[in-house]
């Protein structure tokens, strides 16, 4: 149990997929302009990372390793992610059409969000991860991404009215802020050995 908590905290904070590894920046930069859409996309990412990590672990352990086809992991993982994003898209369209429209093109783009493929691949590098560990790792990474985009959306809503030098407006200032938040997250590194 303790072990799972540590995995979760590590994935969400010390190894934050966005702030420590800078993966998944494209949709992060584009969507973090608004809090509402950020939260929506964040939860979609949490959902997709959690389940794709678990499914990919199952496929890897019970299909690919026994058959000796680990070299296919990239293709298999991305296919699973693509199918899953389709599913999430259908669910969101059904239950929240307005979120569906405000996420627009970025919802299908989660498919090519490198953070999600990254989570599945990093999971394999961890020694001795079982099913539950993978599930929690995927969930933690998703939560980490959600946390980062919410932080950023909050800050961007605050600085919307501020005078920012023309050259830095938009993605420029966002990248700088991301860097500062990333520095702050380094402080978590002492939390877990």
């Amino acid at each position, binding site marked *: 149990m303790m072990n799972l908590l540590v995995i979760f905290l590590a994935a969400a904070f010390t190894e934050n997929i966005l702030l420590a590894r800078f993966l998944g920046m*494209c949709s992060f930069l584009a969507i973090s302009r608004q809090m509402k859409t950020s939260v929506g996309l964040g939860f979609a990412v949490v959902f997709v990372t959690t389940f794709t990590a678990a499914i990919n672990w199952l496929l890897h352990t019970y299909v690919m390793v026994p058959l000796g086809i680990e070299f296919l992991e990239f293709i298999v993982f991305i296919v699973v992610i693509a199918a899953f994003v389709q599913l999430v898209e259908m669910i969101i369209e059904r239950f929240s059409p307005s979120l569906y429209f405000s996420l*627009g*093109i970025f919802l299908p*783009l989660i498919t090519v969000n490198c953070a999600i493929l990254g989570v599945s691949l990093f999971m394999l590098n961890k020694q001795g991860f079982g099913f539950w560990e993978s599930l929690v790792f995927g969930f933690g990474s998703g939560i980490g991404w959600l946390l980062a985009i919410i932080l950023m959306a909050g800050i961007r809503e605050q600085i919307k009215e501020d005078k920012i030098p023309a050259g830095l407006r938009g993605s420029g200032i966002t990248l700088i802020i991301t860097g500062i938040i990333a520095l702050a997250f380094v402080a978590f590194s002492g939390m877990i050995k």
Partner: protein
Amino acid sequence: MKENPAEQPIRDRLEPGALSVDGFLGTDKRPIADIIAADTGTVEAEGFTVEQLGDFLEKLHVTADEGWESRVPMYDGKISVRSDETLGQIPCPFACGAHCHKAEIAVKDPDGNDLLRFTPLDAHLIAAHGFFEGKGAHYRIEPKTLIALYRLCTE
């Protein structure tokens, strides 16, 4: 730089046959963002803003409208404007929700020489989107021409 996925539907509406017969891009093959960046760059290098120029055209359009298709002198007779109006409205191709009158406004100098021809949609496209239309488009306005006209009227 990845092409912004949001740009494709705009490009579709700017192509010939979508909103107007000849379209808004002419022979220009550049991405729309580049067209806008190049023209706004020219405008800003001259010390103007696109809003200023777009609002100026809108003022000419409003004045011309009051003339009910006759020639109206403006700026102490330095120019005169006349609007040829047709029924109907055209939506902004950038889908911002704006709708503009269909008309062609001809700006002439006191000797009757053409200085500029534009549509009310151009005034909106310049003010709101910094878009002067692509090179070779029928209603392409060269930023330099427009700035010269602005200076002629206001100085």
